[in-house]
Each structure stands twice: as structure tokens, then as C-alpha cells.
């Protein structure tokens, strides 16, 4: 794997879109329940309207931020370290030396599995860092590379 800046795979946008729809559905259900409390237990109506507003606004924000989120999320793997970068308004950049990696975990929910993607989380002795979605084969290659480099790094120091 080269050491240039990588974007996440394009299909992650689809996953994020679906999860925005998912949060819309969840919020609709919650608003419905609140409406029932208004109807039968006469809870105040402003609760219903507040939740209705959140139901409409939250998925719109989540959806409209997808291109932004995609554009500014990057990762980079070199011989010595994994670097991740995200956000533009609040830009974060983290460096994790491969020699400090304790374990790499791949996990994928149903949506990610359907798109043949997987989440990667990299754990050091004290912190956890995640890449939101990678192609399955790429993720496995990355995991093997990290584990190989981690082994070598350890031998060097011994």
C-alpha cells in the first residue's frame, strides 16, 4: 500500500445516506409516541412540535453534511505510522505509530456487509482510533500489514 492520502471508498456515502434515513425513521417513531402522550395523557403540545422539528431538521443536516464529511475524511499508511484526518471546520489529525498498535479489529454491520465494506478500529495500549469504512480486501491487507509491521517493530526493539 502506498503512503499517499486515501479517501474512504465512494460507497460509504450511500451508507451514510441510508443511516440518515434510518435516523429519520427512528425520530418519526419517537415523535409518534410523544404525540400519543399528548393525545391521551395531555402532555404539552410544544413537546410534539419540538420533536417534529428535530425529526425534519436532523436528517437534513446529517444528509447535507455527507459530501463534506466524505471530502475531508482521509487516512494514510506509511511504513511507520497510520495517520487519519477528518473535518474541515474542526480539523483533526492523529498519528498512530505502527509499533504502538496492540490490535486491529474489523467489524461490519448489515449495511456495510451488503456493500462489502468494513469498519477498522486500531487500538493502542491506551486509545482507540477508527476508520469508518474500507473495502473488505483493502481492510484485510491493512490489518495484515499493520500486524506484520508491528511484529517487525517489536523485533527491532528487542
Amino acid at each position, binding site marked *: 500500500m502506498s503512503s499517499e492520502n486515501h479517501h474512504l471508498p465512494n460507497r460509504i456515502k450511500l451508507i451514510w445516506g441510508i443511516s440518515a434515513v434510518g435516523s429519520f425513521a427512528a425520530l418519526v417513531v419517537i415523535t409518534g409516541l410523544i404525540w400519543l402522550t399528548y393525545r391521551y395523557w395531555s402532555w404539552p403540545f410544544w413537546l410534539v412540535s419540538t420533536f417534529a422539528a428535530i425529526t425534519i431538521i436532523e436528517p437534513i443536516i446529517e444528509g447535507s453534511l455527507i459530501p463534506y464529511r466524505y471530502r475531508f475524511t482521509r487516512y494514510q499508511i506509511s511504513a*511507520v*505510522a497510520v*495517520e487519519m484526518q477528518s473535518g*474541515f*471546520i*474542526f*480539523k*483533526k*489529525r*492523529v*498519528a*498512530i*505509530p505502527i*509499533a*504502538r498498535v*496492540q*490490535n486491529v479489529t474489523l467489524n461490519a454491520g448489515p449495511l456495510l456487509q451488503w456493500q462489502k465494506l468494513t469498519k477498522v478500529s486500531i487500538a*493502542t*495500549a*491506551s*486509545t482507540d*482510533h477508527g476508520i469508518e469504512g474500507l473495502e473488505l480486501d483493502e481492510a484485510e491487507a491493512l490489518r495484515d500489514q499493520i500486524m506484520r509491521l*508491528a*511484529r517487525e517493530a*517489536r523485533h527491532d*526493539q*528487542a
Partner: protein
Amino acid sequence: MIKPKRTHPLGLLLHIANSIKEYWFLFILVLTLYNQPLWFALSWAGIVLVIIIWPATRWATLSYRVTPTAVEVNSGVFVRHHEHIPYSRIQTVQRKQWFFLAPFKLEELYIETASHDDNKPEARLAAVPTTLADTIDGYRLGATAAATTDSTAATATSETAETDPLPLPATTPVTAHYRINNRTLLKFAVTSTGFIPLLLILLAIYNKVPRSWTDSLIADATHLALVVLIGGAVAVVAIAWVGAFLWTYIRYFHFDVALQGDQLKTAKGLFQRNTITAPLKRIQAIRVKQNVFRQWLHIQTVQVLLASKAASKDDDDDLVILPAVPQSQLYDVAPPFVDWLPDHTPDLSDLNVADRRQWYLIRNALLIVIAPVALASFLLPHWMWAFALILVIAFFQGRFAAHQTGGGLITPRMLALQTGHMWTKETYYLPVDMIQSVRLNQSIWMKRTGLMHLIVNVRHGNKNQAIELRYLKSTQAQRVYDWYLQTV
């Protein structure tokens, strides 16, 4: 083969005491049932089970064995556990000796490795002979001397360090020793900030005092109201402060630290003597700490960050190796214990908050308190002046943080960082091998002003310690980040 041994019967008492400490509320529950004889009897039976029979079976089923390669502990009533702890994996050995155990030459022993299983030591042996810990220490000194394993201490699950059975090294000489004198300890205890949480507890109790009492008191002495009020406040503060003083004084009584081979050993405490042994190689970082009161008295505290919970009752869960050292002597006293510490006050001006940028830290400190203060002054307009005082404190906290922020490379492989949180100046010494990751944060507005936050992660206890230097110049923060990537 040595046969597994049981702990001393006195250990049973400790187990029972522990159960009482955990289930004392049951007694109160039972007392509320006194008019229902059947339930009353049943619940007494329950209590007997919980605080006598259960600990007794636990004690009876616990056994241990010390072999030349590992400590083995067998425990469990229904589910049997066999814990096998090789010496090279041990992070800390902690010995606690209550004064009533001393005549019997017994003590409580806690052994911890770096595994992530939080809040529980790998082995806890109540009431074992004091010679046991010495035997273990002997084997450990042998194990660490022979194991030329890695220096990545941290935790390492995949390392495969095989330790050969070694003969017991007779005695390893003590190469450095320090004992606190009473005057310094008094200074240290007087300036403990432990009174602040105590103060909050006392205030909470005060709130629970029935209104009718205070009302009648105020009605009786309206003309004295202010005196009573101020007097009460002073009394509350004084009680909290004396409490914190005694707490600290008793816990750090006769504090003693020694370096033996590559094991650091601290001992402290009046009623309960608490001895902790930790290998130098497992130190994640060093912290030099000084709250604002101690700044006035010119004393500093030195702590080591370990990947173990052994010191969870020390300040901030980190093992204190030198509770109070006069500022001027710190870099003479500390380096003999940890040889990679600098031997003179380091120059930390490489990383700093520029004078023009200190406003950001002040603003943030004010932003945190402004909403609660506004709400409180709205609800209690009479107390406005007291709340205004909080704003002033916040303002100076922001300034303090800005002034204390500092750092730089001490050696090509060691970073020093200094922060000023909560009126406490903290200087960290971080070997590059122990830094787990480095992070840079920058908001879009900070891009324009060329500023960045630098966050350095190290392990402490079973958790992460993020050391954050806020509002540094981008170039400075970037330099540390690049240094980290290149050196690692």
C-alpha cells in the same frame, strides 16, 4: 513441587471487614423491618450469609503458590479460577499492612499485570507472611534482570518473553533513597486541595438541615445574621481543611522511596502501611505537579504514570514517588531514581501560547462558567457579588493556564509538556517510546490565526491520559507531530 498454601486465618477478618464495608446498608434495611418478625429473622440470616459465610468460603477456597517462574493463585467457590502470573508480566506489587497485622508479621498483597481488565488486581491475598512479598521481589529482580525483552513496556499482549527459572539474587543494593521529613510533610498536608470536595460534601449536608432550624436561628439573631453567616462559612471551610490535612498527613506519614535494582519502592501511611513496588521499565511518564498553594511554598510533587491501578488512591491515581520536594532541589533529588529525568530545570519555552493569544484561554475559562453564573444570579440575586467572584477566578485561571503552557524536546527522544489546569501546574516528561499517539486539532477560525491544539496520549492506570496543550502556534504543534512521526 511446593503445595498451594492458604492465607492466614486473620485474612478471614479482612474478608469480613471488606464485606461489611460493601454491604453496610443491609443493616439499615434490616432495622426498618423490626415489626415483621419473620422477615426480620430471614434478613438476619441473609446478613450472616453475606458477611460471614460467604467470605469464609471464599477464604477457605483461596490458595496460592510461589514457584520460581510464576505466582499461582487458585480461587472461587462455584467457578474455580487458576491465575498464573509470570514475574516478567507483573507491573506492580502492592503490600498493605494494617497496624494490627504488624505483630503477626502479616500483610495484604496485591499483584497487578498490565492487562486491560479494570478495577481488579490479578491477585489479592489477604494476610500472608511478609516474607512472601520479599520472595516475590527477589524472583522479580532476577526476572527483570534476565529478561532482555522489549522496552515498549506498555502492555504488549503478543510479546513472548520466556523467563528462565533463576536462582534468587541474594540482595540487590539500594542505589537511591529518600525519606520525607516532618516539616515538608506538614507543608504538603497543609496545602492539600482535598478540602474542596470535602467542602462540597459539607455544603450538601448543610442544605439538608431542616429549614425551620435555620429560620429560627436567623429570626433570633437578625442583627447578627451577617456574623453568623460569615462565621458559619469560616467554620465549614476550617473543618474541611482540617479533615483534608489529617487525611493527607496520615496517608503520607513517613513517606519513603528507594530504588533497588530496577525496582522503585515507595512506602507510606500511619495506620495502614502501604508499600508499592514497580519496575522502572514500566514507567509510562513522569509528572511533576504543583498546585497554586504549593507554588507559594515552593514545593513540588513527583509522580510516575504506570499501567496499573495500584496507586488508585494516590493523587489522580498515579504513584507518588516524591510527595514534596523543595522546588530548588527537585532536579538533584529526582534523577537518581529515574535516570532519564533532566538534572536541571529544563527550558520549556519552545512550545508556548503567544501573549496576544492568551485571550482565547481566558475567554474559554469564562465561557465555561458564564451560563451557570448567569442562571444562579438570576435565581439568587442577593448572591450576585459571590457569583461575580467566580468570574474573576475563571479569568485568572485562564491567564494561569496560558502562562503555564510550555514544552519542548529535552533530548531527541524525550518530550516535556507543561499545562496549567485547575490552578495546578503539571510538567510531564514523556519518552517517545511511551507516547501512544499524537493528535492535532484545529478549527477553521484557528487556521486564520495560525493556532493549533496538541494532544499527546499516554497510558495511565488502565486508561488513557490525554495531555492537551491548547492554542499553540501551528508551526510549534506541527513540529512536535513531525518529530513524533520521525523518531518513532
